């Protein structure tokens, strides 16, 4: 298997649209996303929300697996510390992803591609703002080649 082409081709393919996976905890961020819908706050259609019971359920290995499968950005979002429905789930999320973010940046993944935010069930405008900003940041970065498993 020759060294696959890692140099990013900066010119963006014409019809490329960033594809962003969002892990959202049911009690806060998923509910926040629902409220964003309820309030008809528009945001770019590039995200796909994957529901998990708690942000503490998100295994860092899912994030690597998502990049392997060619996702351009991953957002792990959950309740603000203290608000967790299971009292301490997001404290573990915070520890794990404080480390994981630095490790991913350390091996060369642009920090904007993998973000973590606390978004509560009442913060619809924040959900809209975070998603819009992240989509624009990733659009400027262009498609993600790193960690991509080009077998398929």
């Amino acid at each position, binding site marked *: 298997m020759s*060294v696959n082409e890692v140099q990013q081709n900066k010119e963006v393919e014409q019809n490329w649209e960033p594809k962003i996976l969002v892990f959202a905890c049911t009690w806060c961020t998923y509910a926040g996303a629902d409220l964003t819908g309820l309030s008809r706050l528009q945001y770019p259609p590039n995200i796909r929300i994957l529901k998990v019971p708690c942000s503490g359920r998100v295994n860092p290995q899912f994030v690597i697996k998502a990049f392997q499968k060619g996702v351009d950005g991953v957002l792990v979002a959950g309740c603000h510390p203290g608000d967790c429905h299971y009292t301490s789930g997001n404290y573990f999320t915070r520890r*794990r992803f404080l*480390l994981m973010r630095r*490790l991913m940046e350390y*091996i060369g*993944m642009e920090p904007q591609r993998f973000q973590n935010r606390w978004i509560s069930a009442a913060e619809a405008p924040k959900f809209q703002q975070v998603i819009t900003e992240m989509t624009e940041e990733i659009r400027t970065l262009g498609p993600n080649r790193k960690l991509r*498993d080009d077998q398929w």
Partner: protein
Amino acid sequence: MVDLTLEIRKTAKELLEKGEAKVVLGWEKGNFPYSTTPVFIDKPEDTERLIWDEYCINNLALYMLDYKHLDGKVGIFVKGCDSRGINRLVQDKQLDREKVILIGLSCPGMKDEKKAKELGPNADIPMAQKCQDCRYPDPVVYDVFLGEKQNKKVPEKIDTSDVEEMETKSPDEKYRFFTTNYEKCLRCYACRNVCPACNCKECIFDQTATGWLAKANNVSNNMFFALTRAMHVGGRCIECGECERVCSVNIPIMLLNKKIIKDINFLFGDYDAGLETEERLPLGGYDYTDPEEFM
């Protein structure tokens, strides 16, 4: 280097003869002057094979996993890093402290066997990098102690200069560095098999049905393996550097492990793995005052 070989053999012989230990674990000379291999002695007369020289670099802790269900005690010689490995196994409930007799040896720092292979026998062989940076030459836990403790002046904090140097690079440079290295990885899993922190009964990389790690030996899956193992040993790595030493394609694995150690110290307060067996692991708990970066 104080020659403790005779003392080692005597101690091992006594243990076996008195039946205190069913088997004693130490080092014996390998085929080349720079190589030693772990050896399991269960007969008193075989203790002659035990040696103690500048190449006893192998970390013997992980072999204890094979003796988990031995009905009898095991004697094992432990340097500083080995003793931390033993503590790790006890902390992970993989080793019953009473079933092992630890014979402590103060470690002067072992030679770099790869350099020895390159430079030939009579050249001046430098000490292995990990031993130069070593902060625990004297064993942190032992039952018997041979020789004296060095109480050497050791650096207060782990040396992460190489990690900091890597951090200054641009994303593409860093990515190219790690992928060119991990492109060579054969996935022989030697690094996992020698690591005292990797003591699972069935490693997820062996459970191919789960869909975590595909069998394909390409950069993407190798990176998945590297990053996942780095996260798994996060907060457990005792910086013994064995993974790097045994890697057949010389991948600088410790660069990843030291990065996580540096971040754990920075984020959650200094923590050295394997110094005791009761405290909660850094990733096994949390603190209300952890740094907040996700607001």
